């Protein structure tokens, strides 16, 4: 992107030329990070006050974590395929990512059902309520991620994603990885401070 002539003397500072749309995504991620940072710190503040219900986190949440992590790997594969103009692989990888994302949501929902069976309700001790809020808020953001993914998927099948037009794919990949990392953080946070 840089075409300024090479110079021996000090160069004036270049105005940063990152793609504004990608930059917007990063700032959007910052605001989501703050949302969850405040939630988890509220959790810690409340937990320190005692009167805290302790329960075993259903094992299905561990499986769903693996599923989401896998989907993130497939997303990366899809991105590399797009970069190399390997359209067959791109379509397979992005479809698997989408299916795994849906599977993750379904597993989270099953996890909620198991929690209810364990008599950990949304209404009751805040320790349970927080669990539902964290998973629910993350699920909400994951649905938004699925929508972004769906757009990319449709674009991929219409052959609009290729090495020369990667921006949509980059935005989608970044956001999907972020949602994965966010869930890993929440999951290990909940395991540690249960």
């Amino acid at each position, binding site marked *: *992107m*840089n*075409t*300024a*002539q090479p*110079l021996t*003397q000090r*160069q*004036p*500072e*270049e*105005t*940063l*030329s*990152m*793609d*504004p*749309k990608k*930059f*917007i995504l990063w*700032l*959007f991620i*910052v*605001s*989501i990070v*703050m*949302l969850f940072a*405040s*939630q988890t710190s*509220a959790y810690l*503040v*409340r937990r320190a*006050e005692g*009167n*805290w219900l302790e329960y075993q986190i259903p094992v299905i949440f561990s499986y769903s974590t693996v599923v989401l992590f896998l989907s993130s790997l497939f997303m990366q594969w899809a991105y590399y395929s797009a970069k190399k103009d390997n359209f067959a692989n791109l379509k397979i990888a992005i479809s698997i990512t989408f299916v795994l994302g849906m599977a993750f949501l379904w597993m989270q929902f099953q996890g909620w059902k198991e929690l209810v069976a364990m008599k950990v309700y*949304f*209404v*009751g*001790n*805040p320790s349970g*309520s*927080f669990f539902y*809020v964290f998973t629910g*808020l993350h699920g909400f953001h994951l649905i938004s991620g699925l929508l972004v993914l769906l757009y990319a998927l449709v674009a991929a099948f219409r052959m609009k994603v290729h090495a*020369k*037009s990667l*921006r949509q794919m980059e935005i989608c990949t970044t956001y999907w990885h972020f949602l994965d990392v966010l869930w890993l953080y929440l999951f290990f946070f909940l395991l540690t401070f249960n």
Partner: protein
Amino acid sequence: MSVVETGIGTTVHAEEHEHHEEQNFWRKYIFSEDHKVIAKQYLITGIMWSVIGIAMSVVFRIQLGFPNANLSWLKPVLGQWINDTGQLDPNFYLALVTMHGTIMVFFVLTAGLSGTFSNFLIPLQIGARDMASGFLNMLSYWFFFTASVIMFSSLFLQTGPAAGGWVIYPPLSALPQAHIGSQMGMTLWLVSMTLFIVSQLLGGINYITTVINLRTRGMAFNRLPLTIWAFFITAILGLISFPVLLSAALLLIFDRHFGTSFYLSEIYINGEALPNVGGSPILFQHLFWFLGHPEVYIVLLPALGITSEIIATNSRKPIFGYRAMIASLIGIAFLSFIVWAHHMFVTGMNPFLGSVFMFLTLIIAVPSAVKAFNYTTTLWRGNLVFTPAMLFSIGLVSLFVTGGLTGIILGNSALDIQLHDTYFVVAHFHIVMGAASAFGLFAGVYHWFPKMFGRMMNNTLGQIHFWLTFTGIYLVFFPMHYIGIAGFPRRYYQFTTYNFSSSFTDLNAFISVAAILSFLAQFIFLWNFFYSIFKGKKSPQNPWRSNTLEWTAPINPGHGNWVGEIPPVYRWPYDYSKPGAPEDFIPQNVPYSQTPESNLPHENEEIAMEKVIEAQNFNDQFKEAH
């Protein structure tokens, strides 16, 4: 054109091409993506809200100043809230103070100030065609508009709008049976504020992206006008703190509507025990004030940026300590995140923790004092031009110092035991945050009105408006400190039960009269503003002989701001009264090679860089203004 096309660049442009079609009325003036139109939309909405918000304060000031007055004459407006004997309903009094706070803090001084001037000035002063995403920018305004409509409609509810104070502490706000204002009014408050937060996030994300990515050639960070620095840091504050308020509001919504117990625990109401166990109302206060304190600076920093620019321009002198001004902005912004608990000294927190927060709070005095001194030293021996904008800027400095001094008193955790929730607090934050920011808003409107509407506001009316407002503010808030120290608590409908407390009535009546007069003085501004939009004197190209880029754009800039190429920038924006120069100002787009008579030795070396600056690439969103 020295802009270099890149693969990514072309995809950015692809979406903007649709602008080239002739836009119809709706796309041009209503659902506009042009930053200047959106700025005006914010400004006009903000002005409407401020009329409502200040009118509310006048109603409760009448109640405080004249407790037994017959208010039947207000029945046509307030209806059922005035009872048969002409008394204001106490519940509605609480709703009035709550809505006054919410409206003024969020809808006027956040959306009206930051929304107007960040939108208007960022692209014009950094040399960009528009915001990074015009669509998100439009969305930001319409989220704000929807939030406004919902908040406004809550005023007309049978049970009244939210009434738990603008800080909406639970359990009062969480339990509909606690107060009539906690019923539908509170629900609408939460819905409206959620939309408002979304609006602020969309706006803030856009401001940050624009400042970082869309600066013109040569506009390095150390050449940005201080206004842009202030808007930039304000947007970062908002981006970090508003999601936290969203968190707090979300948990409150769950408590109110789904029966969770985040903030509620062991409550008896009307003799009946509630099922909620295990919540913590203090938790809400932590979350709220983690937004709430930065919010103070979200309101104030844009005003400080605006005055920095106006004071330098109208003193015809470079701003004193440009880098110190930026450093103090950053310092204030950083500190604002680690002082929130000074709002909670009397919640029973650990006294040691209290002294930590007290220490951090008092440190804010340092960057604030840097700013106050730099304003004064910029004014010192300048060729002052007393335009209305300049008067309001100097007024801001005065209010900033006055209100800041009482901040040092309130920041002490021991003194706060006496002063907490008294009118001393009310006087403090109204001067330092309310009036100071409002002065910044006025200064900004007077200064950039010619750029906004291509016409000038009436100077004489502006001067009269300033002096009435300035004296009015001090007459209202100075006596308030006194009754606060004496122990008059805020948010009380009436405080005349005891002999000692009735002795405040005279002073309260005085404050109320001053408040009403200052309110009336604002109509001078309103008339001047709306009259000048249509009938004001036509503005020259650069009415204040200012250096910043917006004055190089056409008097009525079209979509895209500059006709042809965007001017590159070669120098900082404060070259006023430079020795040797023929004029007392040298705009930012004048290269050093054209001003050999006034260049300093190191600036002569910069001449070699001009070619490089012109060859730089930058994000030009669309090639031609239209």
